[in-house]
C-alpha cells in the first residue's frame, strides 16, 4: 500500500465524515428528544444546497454566507412545520411510526417541488476557489472540501455549546433523558420540541451546503444521504452529539479507505455489511445513549 494514498484517503474521509456528522446531529436530536424519525431531514439539507446554488449562480454569493443566511430562515420555516404538521402527532398511539409516515410524505412533496423548480439535473456548487487546493508536501486539500469541513466543525461545536451551556439547551437534554421528569421540573415540552426540530432543520441546511461543496447533488440525492444519516446516528448513539460527530469521522474514514483500495461497487457493500454486524452486537451505538 502506498502510504501517501492512505493518508490522502484518510484526509478526505475525515472531511466527508465531518460533513455527514453535521447533517446527522439534527436527525439524531429529533429522534432522541422528540421520538420523531424525520425522513425529510435530508431534503431540508438539499433545500439549503439549492438555496446556496441559486445565490451563487445568480449573485455570486459565497456558500459560507448562504449557510449563515439559510440557518435562521430554515429555523423559522421549521417552527411553522412543527406547529402545523409534527405537533398534532403527539396524539398518535405510535409516535415513531406516525412521524415516519408523515415525514415520508413531506419528503416526497419537497423532492418533487425541487424537481419542478430546479429540474432533475445534477448540480455542483462551484465558488471561485472551486479548483484551487492547499498543497502540503505530497497531499492535496481542495478548498471547497476544507470549507465544507470547517463549516461542519463550526456547526457541530456551536450546537454542542448551546446544548451544554444555555438553559434552553439543558432543557433539551433533560427532555431527551426523561420527558416526564423534564415536564415535572417545568419544561414546556412543546416549546422544547419546536426548538429542537428547528435547530435540527437549520443545521441540516448548513450540512447540505457543506455536502454540496464536496459532491454534486440532485433532487433525489436525499435518499442516499438519509441512509448515511441512519448509519452515523446509529453508530454514534441516538441523541448523542459528540457520539454523532465521532461516528461521522469513523464512517468517513472507512468509506474513504475502502474507496481508495476496493472496486467501487464493493464500497457500499462493505459499509452496510459492517453496519449490520455492528448493530447486531452494539445496537445502542459505540458511545451509548447518554453523553
Amino acid at each position: 500500500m502506498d502510504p501517501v494514498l492512505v493518508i490522502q484517503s484518510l484526509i478526505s474521509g475525515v472531511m466527508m465524515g465531518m460533513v455527514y456528522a453535521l447533517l446527522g446531529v439534527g436527525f439524531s436530536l429529533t429522534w432522541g428528544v422528540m421520538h420523531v424519525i424525520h425522513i425529510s431531514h435530508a431534503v431540508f439539507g438539499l433545500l439549503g444546497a439549492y438555496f446556496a446554488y441559486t445565490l451563487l449562480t445568480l449573485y455570486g454569493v459565497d456558500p459560507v454566507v448562504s449557510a449563515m443566511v439559510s440557518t435562521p430562515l430554515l429555523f423559522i420555516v421549521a417552527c411553522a412545520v412543527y406547529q402545523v404538521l409534527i405537533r398534532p402527532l403527539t396524539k398518535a398511539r405510535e409516535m415513531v411510526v406516525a412521524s415516519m409516515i408523515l415525514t415520508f410524505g413531506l419528503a416526497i412533496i419537497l423532492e418533487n417541488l425541487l424537481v419542478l423548480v430546479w429540474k432533475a439535473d445534477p448540480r455542483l456548487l462551484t465558488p471561485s476557489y472551486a479548483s484551487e487546493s492547499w498543497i502540503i508536501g505530497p497531499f492535496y486539500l481542495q478548498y471547497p472540501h476544507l470549507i465544507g469541513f470547517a463549516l461542519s466543525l463550526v456547526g457541530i461545536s456551536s450546537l454542542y455549546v448551546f446544548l451544554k451551556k444555555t438553559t434552553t439547551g439543558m432543557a433539551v437534554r433533560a427532555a431527551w433523558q426523561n420527558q416526564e421528569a423534564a415536564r415535572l421540573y417545568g419544561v414546556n415540552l412543546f416549546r422544547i420540541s419546536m426548538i429542537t426540530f428547528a435547530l435540527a432543520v437549520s443545521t441540516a441546511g448548513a450540512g447540505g451546503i457543506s455536502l454540496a461543496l464536496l459532491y454534486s447533488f440532485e433532487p433525489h440525492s436525499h435518499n442516499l444521504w438519509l441512509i448515511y444519516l441512519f448509519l452515523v446516528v446509529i453508530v454514534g448513539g441516538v441523541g448523542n452529539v459528540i457520539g454523532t460527530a465521532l461516528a461521522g469521522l469513523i464512517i468517513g474514514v472507512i468509506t474513504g479507505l475502502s474507496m481508495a483500495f476496493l472496486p467501487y461497487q464493493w464500497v457500499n457493500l462493505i459499509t452496510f455489511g459492517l453496519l449490520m454486524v455492528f448493530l447486531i452486537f452494539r445496537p445502542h451505538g459505540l458511545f451509548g445513549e447518554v453523553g
Partner: protein
Amino acid sequence: MKKVPLIMAVLTVAVMALFPLLRPEVYYLSFLFTLFMYVVLSSSWNVIGGYAGYLSFGHAAFFGIGAFATAKMATAFSLSPLLTILSSIPAGLLAALVALIVGYPCLRIRGPYFSVVTICFAFVVDLAVKNIEELGGAEGLWMTFMDLPEETSRAIMYEVMLLLMVVTLATVYLLGRSRFGRGLTAVRTDEEVAETMAIPTAKLKIQAFVVSAFFPGVAGGLFAYYLSYIHPDAVFSINISILIVLMAMFGGGGTWLGPIVGAVILTVVNEGLSTFAQAEIARIIYGALFIIVTIFMPDGIIAYFRRWATTQRKA
C-alpha cells in the same frame, strides 16, 4: 369468521376469479395483478410488522430473492411455463430460509434499531446480487415468457396471483386468531411481560419473520416471470420496502383488514394519479395524502373507522 363475512369473502373471490372471462383489456388484468401482489406483500409484512410490532424495512429483500431465484431456475434449467410458475414456491422457501438465518441475530434488536438493521440487510442483498455475475450482475436476467396470446397469458398470471393472495390472506387470518397470533400481540404490547408469562418470544418472532418472508418470496417469483426480465433495481429498491410498510400502517397495522385496505387505496391512488396528472404533481398529491391521513387518522384508517363506529353507536 362469522357466516356472513365468510360468504362475502367467498363471493368476492369468486367474482374476481371469473373476471377474466369478461375479456377485459390487458391493462386491467395487469393493474389487478399488481394490486394483488401488493396485498400479498403488505399482508405478509403485517405478521412481523403489525402483529409483532417489529417494523421490517427490508422486505423488498425477500421479494427480490424470490424473483432472482425463480429467474435463475427458469433460465438455468429452461423450465416450461408451468414449472416456472411452480418454481416460485421453492423461491419462496429460499426467502424463508434467508429470513431464518438473518432473523436469528436481528430479531434480538428492538424498536427503530431493528428497522435500521433490516434496511442494511436489504442493501447488502441488493449489492451482493449486483456483484454476482451468474445472476446477471448489474444487467439483470431475461426469461422467455409463455408462448400464448397476450390476453390468455396475462389472465393465467392474474389467476395465479389471485390464488397466492387468497392463500396468503387465509394464512394470515388463521395465524392472527391462533395462539401464535395472540403470542405475537403479547410481544408487541410488552415483550418483557410476555417473556415472564412463559411465552417463547424469541421462537415466535423468528416464526413470524419466516412466514412474513415466504409469501413475498413467492410473489417475487411470479413478478419476475410476469415481467420476464428482472433487474436488481426493480425488486430491491428501498422504495418497495417503504411502500410495503406504508400500505400496512396506512390501513392499520396489526389488523387483518388494514394492509388490504391500505394496499388497495394506495395502489389505486397511485395508478389514478399517474394516469391523470403530470408526474411531479402526482407525486406531490401522493405525498400530501400521507400527511393528511397521518394527521387525521394517526393510527390508520381501520382504527379511525372503528372509533367512529363506536361513537356512532353510543350517540
